[in-house]
């Protein structure tokens, strides 16, 4: 176990170093920071002085070492726009994104398992077919479109006049298909203060109503993917010999589904979850933009527009760091669940 952790740690370290190199190289690629800092009216002498003071005339490897050393001390420089340490800016925006990801992850997990398992146990039921059909839609429609659709339906509202409104049944159908809207379409509202820079949307109904649509549209990719994966895995496992044997032993269906089948189905789900974490980060950019959700994604896009290089680099490093940490955790979980992996890694 310890060797495994150590190995993973070294691997993670290498990934972080690689990200830092990319981040460092990016810094020089997007415009001149001197120009950003001093503005157009500065004299050449002033520029040269600042260039020398910032160490920009040093060889590249020296600059990188300098960058890496400060990064190790959690000093990623100051944002050229906010004139504050980038990490403290990130810390300010992080809770919003974390809550958004958390909400959509909870939504995904709470819904995908029951739906996936149900669709596997009752493959021919009308409800299963419905879920499978909707899941294809969910996977195919891009997040920003889902988000706009959700806003149209639940924030603005849709009034359907497809059926003759004069007849009672037409009126009823129109009413049924129309939505009233009213859900908040942008921003976080006024989240409650928890601690430090952390404000939460989970403490009140109003807060929840603000996070509902963004979380739903973020989950609209992951959820159908998980439903389909869980269903496919469960179908295969339920037809396996060991499930049949579990039945032949006289176990209850509940035990067979939850212990025998689900534990096996979890393995690929966990793997996919880890891989999808990266795309989840990417999707937060889209979701946060559509809903003007004041999180890292929105801030990142703003930083790109302002060519705020230190901030961009920090965002990349932090995102990469989280990605590595999450994937390590997932590897650990996988190992705990799958006894066959342990044997391969520690030959006896």
């Amino acid at each position, binding site marked *: 176990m310890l060797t495994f952790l150590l190995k993973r740690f070294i691997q993670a370290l290498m990934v972080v170093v690689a990200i830092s190199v990319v981040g460092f190289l990016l810094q020089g690629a997007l415009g001149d920071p001197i120009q950003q800092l001093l503005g157009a009216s500065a004299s050449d002498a002033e520029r040269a002085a600042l260039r020398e003071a910032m160490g920009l005339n040093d060889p590249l490897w020296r600059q990188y070492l300098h960058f890496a050393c400060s990064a190790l001390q959690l000093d990623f420089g100051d944002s050229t726009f906010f004139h504050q340490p980038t990490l403290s800016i990130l810390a300010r925006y992080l809770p919003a994104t974390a809550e958004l990801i958390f909400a959509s992850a909870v939504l995904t997990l709470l819904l995908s398992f029951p739906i996936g398992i149900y669709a596997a146990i009752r493959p021919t039921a009308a409800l299963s077919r419905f879920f499978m059909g909707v899941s294809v839609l969910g996977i195919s429609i891009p997040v920003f479109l889902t988000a706009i659709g959700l806003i149209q339906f639940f924030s603005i509202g849709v009034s359907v006049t497809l059926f003759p409104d004069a007849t009672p049944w037409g009126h009823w159908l129109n009413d049924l298909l129309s939505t009233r809207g009213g859900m908040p379409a942008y921003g976080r509202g006024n989240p409650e203060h928890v601690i430090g820079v952390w404000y939460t949307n989970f403490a009140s109904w109003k807060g929840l109503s603000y996070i509902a649509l963004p979380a739903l549209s973020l989950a609209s990719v992951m959820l159908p993917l998980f439903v389909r994966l869980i269903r496919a895995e469960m179908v295969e496992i339920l*037809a*396996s*010999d*060991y499930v*049949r*044997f*579990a*039945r*032949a*032993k*006289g*176990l*209850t269906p509940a*035990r067979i589904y939850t*212990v*025998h089948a689900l*534990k*096996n189905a979890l*393995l690929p789900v966990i793997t996919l979850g880890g891989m999808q974490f990266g795309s989840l980060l990417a999707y937060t950019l889209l979701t946060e933009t559509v809903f003007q959700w004041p999180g890292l994604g929105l801030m990142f896009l703003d930083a790109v527009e302002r060519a705020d290089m230190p901030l961009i680099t920090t965002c990349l490093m932090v995102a990469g760091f989280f990605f590595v940490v999450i994937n390590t955790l997932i590897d650990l979980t996988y190992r705990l*669940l*799958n*006894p*066959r992996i342990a*044997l391969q890694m520690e030959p006896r």
Partner: protein
Amino acid sequence: MALLEVDNLDVRFPLRHGEIQAVRDLSFTLERGERLGIVGESGAGKSVLGFSLVNLLAAPGRIIGGSIRFEGRELIGLPEHRWRHLRGRRIAMIFQDPRATLNPVLTIGAQMIETVRAHRRLGGRSARAMVLRTLEQVRIDDPESRLAQYPHELSGGLCQRVVIAIALLLDPDIIVADEPTTSLDVTIQADIVNLLLTLCQQRSISLILISHDLGVVNQLTHRLMIMYAGAIVEQGPTRQLLNDPQHPYTQALINALPEMTPPRQPLQQLPGAMPSLSAVPTGCAFHPRCPYRLDALGQPRQVCIDTPPDFTDVADTQVACHVVRELIATTQDSMPFDEETT
């Protein structure tokens, strides 16, 4: 009253294109302590028969007719929770591939203890003691440490012992063993056969052994049923049936054994393949492949094509063949199959 009585059992798999008749109008009885072999080619419906005895048919298989009585009690139509009490406790199963039978992500201990607990209200300690006792009975060394192991850490033979131990846990009346030795290598096979034999004898457990290994069947069973295309073609005492087969199919099956052919001779084989169970031939299902389908004049025997044969008693065996009397009447050496036995 026999322990298990199966009458006119019909099992079908309705598919989009027609229907598969996996078991057709099949009847047999099993006495307490009796060991019954079921032999036939792949696709004869042996396994389906085995699974239908515990109502574990794979979808869309269904028992559409007949009766299964266990200790005189009708099982067909029993609600699922009653079946559950029967499975594992009164009728246990052993599958073909022990590695696939055991759940890869659960320890041996967990898979055994859950079986005990599905049927008995026992505390962890006494369930564990029961499991350990059973593991010793199937001659597994160091059972204590096996409990914490996973199936992939055990050899195939050891896994099959564990599966047998699970089958034995609740002292069942019947064990249905579906090819229990097929996936094991030969030396282990002998061990497992001996183990099954001893355990069934000691506890007077009835065994239904599904196999296509005539040697294993010969060692393990009292009585033998030969299945072809979902029905029994011949049944009787194992030794007698193997030494003096009456049905043309049984004869062909035994003659196809490599041991039955002298060295340097091509192996004898039965021409043709078993019919698909979705298109079972009329009359005697075996007639298209039967070496006696033509009479002495070279004309097709119409009765074989038209009428399903009833059982004819020949000594202690029952043979489903229209022409069996005729075959016995003709002298032995005129028969196309060599009747010699080893």
